[in-house]
């Protein structure tokens, strides 16, 4: 029997204090599309970086076509016929398609770069695999789907027979996904092996020949699309039953806390948000679902005043705040749990008490007049740490010393302790452990029952269904559906999110 294209045995990789991969086994047959699924943070990307030579495993062996290999750099992986398309494209905008493709493996004529033969080769590859693109365009002029094609061309140009695609559909619109899948089919028919990393189960079921599930750095099992369902895969990924919608009684009141009225945002000629109108009432959690990049980030920015809408109004407690500054809004009781906590929510090298006052620096007990109240801030921070179970040796340690879960609890704690009227939360439980997740959910529910209005923006469907009273779906800058989380199914939600049901 032909040896598998790729075989991984007992791969382990540890970072200081973390185990990213722990005993991963994987067998990928030649000429198949093999999907690797797992939640955010399950260790998929680390695994692929190991296979591509970007990181060395601490333990375990890698076999390519039955022969054991040891990669010290991507160069070795490329030489072994492995190519990778990163989720965040590795392209230089200011270089042409041709330059991006041949970089590192340039055809030469004498000392010069042989553009003519490079061009011919790229055109030929593009035609063979149905990915036609002008080699002399600057990459900055290309759209997302085209950029992805350049990435794949890059890999094929190097003669890769094994293609790793890291979350390739995350940035694509549905039509582009279809095009990508067509290309993958073409590749497969010509004997190329594709490893497809994703957490989108419907896509995996559609394109893959085999599916391996990874959870918490371990392989849970390998299956085939015909032998499984999305629900089963999801259970394998999560490891237990999906969370049920909150069955406690509704606390939704009639008082509208936040209202958006025809909010539109245009950026460089593109309509990013298109006439969004919505209301969040006191005691209500409104969830916004959608594939990332459909205007959610900008919507949050507009509500916080980080960006001004092109037209439309934002009202807080009935008052028009469209022109108000971010500082003013925060002081009026708008709490914010950012999706990317390290980038938007923390001062990593600063002590915890300074982190606890971020966004509340004008308010008692953190400041008095123009002065910072250090003692007050420390006392309040210690209180937050206690109430919200932030595990830390003290309030003077820098935030980067805390684990991700504790950082998140600190952020949730600081926003909750300020008793906001409106909480804007983006992915509040992203990347934190189950215990911390449960704690955060409990706190959100408690605050809601006291009349807090919450706008929850998340890509995590379980979280949305588990917490929301009302679910809105955003697609291409518009609210395309309002759903009841008690009755909605992930499939239904998914079809709105991908525009299939619009």
């Amino acid at each position, binding site marked *: 029997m032909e040896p598998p294209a790729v075989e991984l045995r007992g791969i382990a990789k540890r970072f200081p204090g973390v185990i990213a991969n722990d005993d991963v086994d994987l067998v990928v047959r030649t000429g198949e599309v093999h999907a690797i699924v797992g939640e955010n943070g399950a260790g998929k990307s680390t695994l692929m970086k190991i296979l591509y030579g970007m990181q060395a495993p601490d333990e375990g062996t890698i076999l390519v076509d039955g022969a054991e290999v040891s990669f010290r750099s*991507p160069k070795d992986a490329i030489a072994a016929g492995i190519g990778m398309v990163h989720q965040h494209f*590795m392209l230089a905008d200011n270089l042409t398609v041709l330059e991006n493709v041949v*970089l590192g493996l340039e055809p030469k004529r004498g000392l010069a770069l042989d553009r003519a033969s490079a061009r011919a080769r790229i055109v030929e590859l593009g035609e063979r695999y149905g990915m036609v693109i002008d080699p002399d365009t600057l990459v900055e002029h290309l759209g997302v789907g085209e950029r992805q094609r350049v990435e794949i061309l890059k890999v094929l140009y190097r003669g890769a027979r094994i293609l790793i695609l890291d979350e390739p559909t995350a940035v694509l619109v549905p039509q582009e996904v279809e095009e990508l899948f067509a290309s993958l089919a073409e590749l497969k028919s010509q004997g190329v092996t594709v490893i497809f990393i994703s957490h989108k189960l419907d896509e995996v079921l559609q394109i893959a020949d085999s599916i391996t599930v990874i959870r918490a750095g371990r392989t849970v099992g390998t299956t085939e699309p015909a032998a499984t369902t999305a629900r089963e895969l999801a259970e394998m990924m999560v490891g237990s039953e999906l969370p049920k919608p909150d069955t406690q009684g509704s606390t939704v009141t009639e008082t509208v806390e936040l209202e958006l009225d025809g909010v539109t945002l245009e950026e*460089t000629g593109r309509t*990013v948000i298109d006439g969004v109108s919505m209301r969040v009432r006191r005691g209500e959690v409104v969830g916004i679902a959608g594939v990332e990049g459909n205007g959610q980030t900008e919507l949050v920015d507009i509500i916080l005043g980080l960006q001004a809408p092109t037209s439309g109004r934002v009202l807080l407690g009935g008052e028009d705040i469209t022109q108000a500054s971010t500082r003013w809004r925060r002081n009026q009781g708008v709490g914010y749990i950012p999706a990317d906590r390290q980038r938007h929510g923390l001062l990593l090298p600063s002590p915890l008490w300074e982190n606890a006052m971020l966004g509340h620096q004008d308010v008692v007990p953190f400041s008095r007049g123009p002065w910072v109240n250090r003692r007050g801030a420390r006392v309040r921070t210690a209180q937050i740490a206690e109430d919200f179970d932030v595990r830390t040796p003290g309030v003077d340690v820098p935030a980067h010393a805390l684990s991700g879960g504790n950082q998140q609890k600190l952020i949730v704690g600081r926003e909750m302790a300020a008793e906001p009227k409106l909480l804007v939360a983006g992915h509040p439980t992203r990347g934190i452990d189950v215990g911390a997740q449960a704690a955060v959910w409990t706190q959100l529910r408690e605050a809601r029952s006291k009349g807090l209005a919450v706008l929850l923006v998340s890509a995590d469907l379980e979280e949305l269904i588990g917490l929301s009273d009302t679910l809105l779906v955003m697609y291409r800058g518009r609210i395309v559906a309002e759903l009841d989380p008690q009755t909605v199914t992930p499939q239904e939600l998914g079809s709105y999110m991908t525009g299939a049901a619009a």
Partner: protein
Amino acid sequence: MTTVSGTGTPAVHAARPKRKLPRAMILVGLGVILLSIVRVVADADDLTSAGSFSAAIRLGVPILLAGLGGLFAERCGVVNIGLEGMLILGTWFGAWGAVEFGAWEGVLLGIFGGALGGLIHAVATVTFGVDHIVSGVAINILGAGMARYLSVVSWVGKGTGGGATQSPKVTVDIAKVDVPFLAGGSIFGWDTPDVLGRIASWRWVVISDVAGLLRGLTGNLSLLSFVALLLVPASVLFLWHTPLGLRLRSAGENPYAAESLGVNVYRMKYLGVITSGALAGLGGAFLVLEGAGIYREGQTGGRGFIGLAALIFGNWRPTGVAMGAGLFGFADALRLRNESAVHALLLFVAVAAALAALWLLFDRRYRYGAVIGAIAVGFGIWYVTSDTVPRQFLSFTPHITTLLVLAFATQRLRPPAADGLPYRKGGGT
């Protein structure tokens, strides 16, 4: 700041690199025609004389070399504000080499001195991840300190005319050539006619001015200038038409992409930054050998920073840098040669700005059109109401020009995308 990056930029400004050169030529052509008209109107013959252009080249070459130095560093992603220090090292080593061995050895040692500065910058920024600006400032201090220290060690009390702040006089035996037939050079002892010089002396509108420009380029041209000018097309060829050049640029655009394709980014950055220093060092040697004929403390006079200005003005392209250096060198030449020609330059600026304003208004960019129009009117009034321009103004013309370009044309500037950003191997997501 939290928004996702826009997908699919509109392809309105989709100018290909290929079209750039003609555009640069059109601009130069327009400039010469305008200069010619101004020359006639303001009766300032020196504005376009061969002597002025020749001086512009002599003064522009160090700026050009510093600018090209900046280009190589920034194209591989390292900001180099240490150019001034590398230029200083070039002057010192150039003079020392010329004193000890001879002019061409001086050139080589000047290149070596600058490259040494580049090496230090590379070690600090690339290997140790020091902030590029901090390292650049340190190299400027270091360059000045080292030059002084070495001068004291080498020349004080040696009775050769050198001292702590200057070298002994150097003998320059680098040939100067006049191109035969065009600028009256000789072939086998026969003096050919100086055709361009003749035409230039007729003072015909445009034709004589172009002849003056070309005469400046072809007459009394030192071999060293010739080498320096050749470096412009050489840089284009190297950076855009060789595999190594592509790799070097990729390190400045997206080092992690380059790394993922097996390019040794560290090596590219070392190459770029050391080349940068070498070019600046050559510029320093040029100052000594073609300028003063001696090393003198403070001789560089901030030309490293003007080189940086030329780099920005030239939009990080060799031809652009050459245009910037030519322009700044020209301004410098007029300052030194002829004050009334400087005054005529006001009219030039006024007319050029007026034309630009008209074009902008025609293009419906009213705001910028109005701003530029106001500038045109301002310069026009200045021209009419004054007889001279304080010569100091020309010293900082390059800097003000650069600030204006940065303030009003940022969207047209395209510095390398990863310019100045720290890079660690394996540090990408």
